[in-house]
């Protein structure tokens, strides 16, 4: 090989790398109904200013359904961002926190632990991908994939999981490491402008899709029955607790207020009790008392059995923001230049909220 | 002898102009069927024993090559 040929080869490989990288980026996690808000949230996380958040909230779908970040900002000047994904696997909590801390020096992490129920822990592909496929490639992502594959095998090898064997056969490891292996087939289902241009949230991760739907839901019934978490569940909670200890990140565990079935009540309460026994800070918002304090009206504030609508979200945000303000000394950053987008998000949210309910009224 | 050979060849494949072809085997003009019939004809006609190891393309690509082969065979016996 001559020098010229070598140089040419290098240029070619660089060019090829750029093209392939772009292609892999475009054929990524699809921005469809139910997933677009996740994509927006991660888009804003990766493209936004560094070290501007005070606190991050993680967990499953309930988190963005209950938390309106622009409101808390407007009231207290606190930057608390929801980094949840639909059905976020609790077992990956430390990885998502790690990802956040790469960019944001948060002082507090609020972790919703309703994902601890055995049924919810079930590591289905969609749950995993909602989170992993929105994460950029990094050592952390690689470790998260390794961890979830291990967990997947562990979970579906359990005797109390009926279709375990069938699910084990379904696991495609390669496409978890490199999602393009799966998403290249999106040429069949279609691509969108946002696949090419990227997409970001402009209301600080506020949930939009069904925010103005109302469904009358039975209030959660409390039960006296109790149970003990199994080893798997305990180990997941332990890992999060230890992560907080090792990194010095303060962690506040909560159960998001929503309607819970009998089984869910028993299982989440068991988790609450377990964490309390470890001396962790836990707030269970699924008690008669808390429902009343927050002011949740099960006939108006939910859009389905499991999620608050925007009316419920505003109530919880008001309540919880005050709690955070009273207990954690986040600096009031209102009026600072680098936080202008938070002000904008507030203005947009007000408009969004008013218009949303007006339209919902009209449709009635 | 050449006349004799050409007679056999034309009998075998009337559609081929044998004296013009230079790559009868390599270009697939003669297929393996033709070769087998040709060899058995040659063996009986010229009283030689062309056998499997002589079935190299080089020996059958042209009329001249075939003649050469036959002569060689007759000499060796």
């Amino acid at each position: 090989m001559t020098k010229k040929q070598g140089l040419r080869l290098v240029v070619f490989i660089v060019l090829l790398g750029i093209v392939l990288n772009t292609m892999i980026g475009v054929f990524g996690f699809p921005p469809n109904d139910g997933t677009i808000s996740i994509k927006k949230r991660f888009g804003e996380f990766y493209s936004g200013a560094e070290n501007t958040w005070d606190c991050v909230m993680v967990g499953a779908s309930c988190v963005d359904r209950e938390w309106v970040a622009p409101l808390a900002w407007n009231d207290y000047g606190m930057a608390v961002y929801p980094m949840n994904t639909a059905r976020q696997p609790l077992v990956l909590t430390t990885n998502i926190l790690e990802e956040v801390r790469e960019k944001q020096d948060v002082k507090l992490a609020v972790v919703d632990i309703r994902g601890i129920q055995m049924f919810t822990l079930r590591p289905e592909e969609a749950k995993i991908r909602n989170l992993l496929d929105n994460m950029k490639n990094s050592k952390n992502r690689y470790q998260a994939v390794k961890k979830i594959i291990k967990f997947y095998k562990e979970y579906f090898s359990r005797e109390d999981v009926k279709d375990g064997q069938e699910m084990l056969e379904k696991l495609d490891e390669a496409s978890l490491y490199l999602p393009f292996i799966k998403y290249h087939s999106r040429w069949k289902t279609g691509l969108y402008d946002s696949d090419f241009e990227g997409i970001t949230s402009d209301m600080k991760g506020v949930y939009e899709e069904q925010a103005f739907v109302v469904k009358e839901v039975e209030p959660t019934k409390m039960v006296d029955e109790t149970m003990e978490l199994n080893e798997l569940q305990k180990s997941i909670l332990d890992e999060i607790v230890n992560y907080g200890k090792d990194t010095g990140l303060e962690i506040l565990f909560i159960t998001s207020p929503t309607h819970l079935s009998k089984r869910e009540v028993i299982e989440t309460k068991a988790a609450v009790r377990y964490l309390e026994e470890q001396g962790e800070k836990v707030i269970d918002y699924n008690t008669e008392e808390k429902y009343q304090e927050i002011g949740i009206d099960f006939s108006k504030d939910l859009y389905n059995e499991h999620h608050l609508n925007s009316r419920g979200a505003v109530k919880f945000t008001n309540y919880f923001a005050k709690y955070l303000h009273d207990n954690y000394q986040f600096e009031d950053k209102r009026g600072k230049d680098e936080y202008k987008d938070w002000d904008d998000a507030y203005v947009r949210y007000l408009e969004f909220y008013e218009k949303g309910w007006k339209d919902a009224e009209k449709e009635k | 002898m050449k006349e004799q050979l050409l007679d056999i060849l034309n009998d075998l494949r009337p559609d081929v102009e044998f004296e013009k072809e230079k790559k009868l085997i390599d270009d697939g003009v003669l297929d393996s069927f033709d070769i087998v019939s040709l060899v058995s004809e040659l063996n009986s006609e010229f009283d030689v024993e062309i056998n499997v190891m002589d079935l190299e393309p080089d020996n059958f690509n042209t009329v001249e090559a075939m003649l050469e082969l036959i002569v060689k065979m007759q000499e060796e016996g």
Partner: protein
Amino acid sequence: MDFISATFVVFVILLSAVYFITPQKAKWCILLLGSYIFYMASSVKLLFFLVLTTAVTFVCGLILGNINEKQKTYLKEHKNEMTREEKKAFKSRTSGKKKWIVAAAVLINLGLLIFLKYFNFIGGNINSLLAGMGIEGKIPHLNLLLPLGISFYTLQSIAYIVDLYRGKYQADRNFFKFSLFMSFFPQIVQGPIARYDQLAHQLYEAHKFDYYRVTQGVQLILWGFMKKLILADRLAVAVNFVFDNPDPHEGFVLFFAAAGYGLQVYADFCGGMDVARGVAQILGIELALNFERPYFALSIEEFWRRWHITLGGWMRDYVFYPLSLSKAFATLGKWTRKIFGNYIGKKLPTFLSMFIVFLLVGVWHGSSWKYVAYGIWNGTIIVSSILLEPVYEKVLKKCRVNTDCFSWRFFQMMRTFVLCSFGRFFSRGISCMTSLDMMKRTVTNFNPWVFFDGSFLELGLGYKDFYVIFIFILVLLVAGVMQERGIRIREKIAEQNLYFRWLLYIGALVVLLIYGSYGPEYAVGEFIYQQF
């Protein structure tokens, strides 16, 4: 290690790099090492069989070589003393000795293949035959694993032994070099079946890095990957769908599946060959061509000359010619000529040996009756077409058909395609009976409406998949026509501007990665939030 995989690509890159920086004299050792690593990546245990065959072939080859040498020197020394008759007698004496060696080598190597590949098939059939006669057959079903590439390297070893018997070349005297010839990784899995005199010296010679040659090889590999991933694996979805459960399908859908399977095998096998040849080319080694656009064939006979050429060539040189020219067949010919007259009588022995060849080719593909049927199907078509040729010619003349025009050749091509596709029912069908049933239901159900009622979209492929299949076949067709006209496409590409070449490389890779059929497929609605 799969050919069509990222691991293999990485393996080839690493191996080539090591090969080119290794000193001239040791380069072949790298190839040997690489080949054995490649083999062991699939199975360490079964390597035993490859080594055994290599050793047996090497030793027998050595003995044959020594006999050849001695014979040569003896004849040279006594050139003038011996009469023609004496020479002849001497030769036949040595060839008698050589025959024993050949028999031993072939028996061991072929025996291994037959035992590992066909023991259960033969045993099972004997058992059921005995059961038919009321006797309980006791031949057990063995759990046999087939060593990677055994069907290919066994043929290669037999060719080497027989060629030495025929005195075609000298025996290899370096066991390790010979091991490389028997195990060269690009061709061990699925050929091309190499001849010693064509491949071995290329493997032993040292090849320097050649920029142009490497780019040509990379192009070929890329092209092979495209055939396999874009066409073969995509067609396989629909083909498997139909063949795995053929009962609900009729008529044209069945035909589509059979024809589709033919194309799938073509794209799969030919693509694999392109990869093999491309990899070898990067290393400076030219492998034999195995496919020459078979779908352009005008007859089944021509089809098989263009399809799996090295297997056909092997069968021709080591089965067809020896059989046809054997004394037994000559006697048979005299006898058949007496009975059937000159025209047919002369041809019958040749037909018989050809029939045997097709049976062998059929059975070589796998141990099942359907492959026997597959062989019979192809053999019958070819024999009958030759026998009926005078009749065809008369009919064509009577009907004043012009046979010297494109449309007639196109008709012949289509006819060959249809006949070939029907044959595929045997090679893909679950069993011989299912295949026959599918054939029957293909011809007895005329259902042209399936082209319009969306039946084809229910076979696991969407309409966009069919677009891709269609476009890629078109590309293959255009490339095929160009090659038929003697245009060497890769050389033509090399003549273009740098920008165009780069665009082509990158474009092809992007197309391959996006439109290739691999990985778990994304379905709309997969992530739609359901229950929590």
